[in-house]
């Protein structure tokens, strides 16, 4: 029980930090609400004040709030997917980018955009997003199954095989996506920086609703799996003896992480390293206790991405830095740190 209350304490503290950051983010931006504070403008909006200027309403709600919520949702899902993948592969290097999920998702999303472009105008917005989202999910799932098949036998993952098959899938995905972008006339696809560096600038409430639905479904399945993942660390045989249905657990992780990574990629491009940094930081604090790091990564991922996004849109105002630059800047050194730390065991 003590662990329970300790976990809740950490969750509440980090959730508070996230709320503070969200407020800071709400106050950050080049638009000036004629001297009024963004908070009071948001208050007016919630009360349905008719005196609220249309522009103020649009900026606070459809630009800033939408973007903050998107950063929270995507950051959270990327971190949780990283944590669960590391539990599945029993290895701290397993992340969506490292094993090729992200590029699989990008590839199929790009194909969906190219093909979907022909009948885009006849589809409602929600269907359009779902089409790209579903394709991205399938791309991630295919990549995941491939990597798992290649690198894992009899419940043991060969790390070198895992990373190399990830490299192979990434390079195939990158080359085909690059070719599609090169021949494409489609404006949406031509934005290479979006696919390579990610961006939250296109946040809308429609996207946020889709993301929220995916997040809720995913977390209902994944978040209670902390104990099971801890048992997996002992080895799959021992986990079976403890009454854990290992095969089912693995299938669930494969499908749910693909779903999360795929959806995030479809809406925000490739935002790297969140799934690597967050579990790493949490491991430093709580060892590999998934009962702690799985739920906490959900909040810490949001904190990290929201911070990165707020910096990205204020550091070079009025334009903005691609957010992937910032996350990779933090992520690269962490990756090297992990390599050095686990040098002997890899």
């Amino acid at each position, binding site marked *: 029980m003590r662990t329970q209350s300790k976990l809740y304490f950490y969750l509440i503290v980090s959730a508070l930090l996230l709320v503070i950051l969200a407020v800071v983010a709400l106050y950050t*931006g*080049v*638009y*000036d609400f004629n001297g009024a504070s963004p908070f009071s403008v948001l208050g007016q909006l919630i009360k349905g004040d008719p005196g609220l200027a*249309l*522009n103020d309403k*649009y*900026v606070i709600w*459809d*630009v*800033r709030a939408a973007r903050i919520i998107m950063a929270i949702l995507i950051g959270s899902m990327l971190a949780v997917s990283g944590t669960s993948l590391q539990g599945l592969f029993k290895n701290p290097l397993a992340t969506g980018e490292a094993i090729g999920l992200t590029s699989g998702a990008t590839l199929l999303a790009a194909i969906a955009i190219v093909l979907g472009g022909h009948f885009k105008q006849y589809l409602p917005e929600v269907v359009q997003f779902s089409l790209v989202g579903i394709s991205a999910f399938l791309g991630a799932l295919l990549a995941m199954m491939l990597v798992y098949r290649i690198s894992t036998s009899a419940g043991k993952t060969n790390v070198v095989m895992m990373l190399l098959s990830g490299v192979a899938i990434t390079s195939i995905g990158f080359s085909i996506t690059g070719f599609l972008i090169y021949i494409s006339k489609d*404006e*949406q696809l031509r*934005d290479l*920086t979006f696919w*390579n*560096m990610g961006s939250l*600038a*296109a946040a*809308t409430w429609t996207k946020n609703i889709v993301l929220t639905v995916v997040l809720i479904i995913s977390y209902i399945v994944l978040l209670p799996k902390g104990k099971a993942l801890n048992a997996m660390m002992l080895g799959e045989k021992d986990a079976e003896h403890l009454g854990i249905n290992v095969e089912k657990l693995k299938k669930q992780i494969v499908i749910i992480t693909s779903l999360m990574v795929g959806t995030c990629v479809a809406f925000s491009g490739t935002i790297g390293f969140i799934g690597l940094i967050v579990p790493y930081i949490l491991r430093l604090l709580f060892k590999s206790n998934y009962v702690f790091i799985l739920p906490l990564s959900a909040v810490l991922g949001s904190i990290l991405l929201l911070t990165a996004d707020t910096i990205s*849109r204020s550091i070079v*105002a*009025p*334009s*903005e830095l691609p957010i992937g*630059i910032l996350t990779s800047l933090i992520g690269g050194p962490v990756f090297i740190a992990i390599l050095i730390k686990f040098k002997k065991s890899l």
Partner: protein
Amino acid sequence: MKKLILAASILMAVYSCKKAEGAKTENTTETSSEAPKSNNKIVTLSGGITEIVSALGHEKEIVGTDVTSTYPATLKATAKDLGHVRSMTIEPIMAVSPTLILASDKDINPDLLGKIKSSGIQAEVFKQEYTIEGTKKLIADVAKAIGNTDYQKLNDKIDADLKQIQPIAKKPKVLFIYARGNMLMVSGKNTPMASLIGLAGGENAVNDFEDFKPLTPEAVVKANPDILFFFETGLQGAGGNEGALKMPGVAQTNAGKNKKIIAMDGGLVSGFGPRLGEAAVELNKLLIENTK
């Protein structure tokens, strides 16, 4: 990292484009039949559109522009520079509280377009065609959008300017090279440069693709242009005439052998606005000088 360097160099190139030009501002102080609405706050997101709005006498109403809006130079002091339309986001646009947003369908980032549409601010996205007729239509459309119907004089000026173009007996083949950082792109069909080269009595050297493609040495040799054509800033960035002659494949072409390199102001070449005639005449003069 490479991308970052590329992005930075593009930004530098873009900012270096924004040098003040020779003062050639036209005075449009004639009173139009309709008094211009002066309570408009306009954001113009394309060099050509910015020029049209200014030439119609509404320069004072422009509160924000994109980086390609380098003319008239006086705008620098009065309008906020919002960056490049490919990477622009909505909030800085909203921050100048525009009542009207005017953009070209070329180059604009689709996410931004979606955001502009959902912002509820009156916005017009014009289809831009790089022809004389297309330019005149754009002028008429922009004039309607800002509620000023007195645009005929701009079209007349274009016609008057175009009359000054001297025919060139043997059409020179002109290759436009767009130097961005260390990426060299050449312009194919349906680009403002190809169109302007045609108007000025030359022939665009590569016509087997549309838009811009990276330059390959073989393609340059095969196209064998008589003249190389640059933006002034691009030529500076490439190391001036010396640098241009060292570009892969150039030495083997007529242009390289005869050292025929010309450069013009980027905003003038690609604007396709009220100064279209001027641009064509200037290029025509340059072509004649370099085909002797």
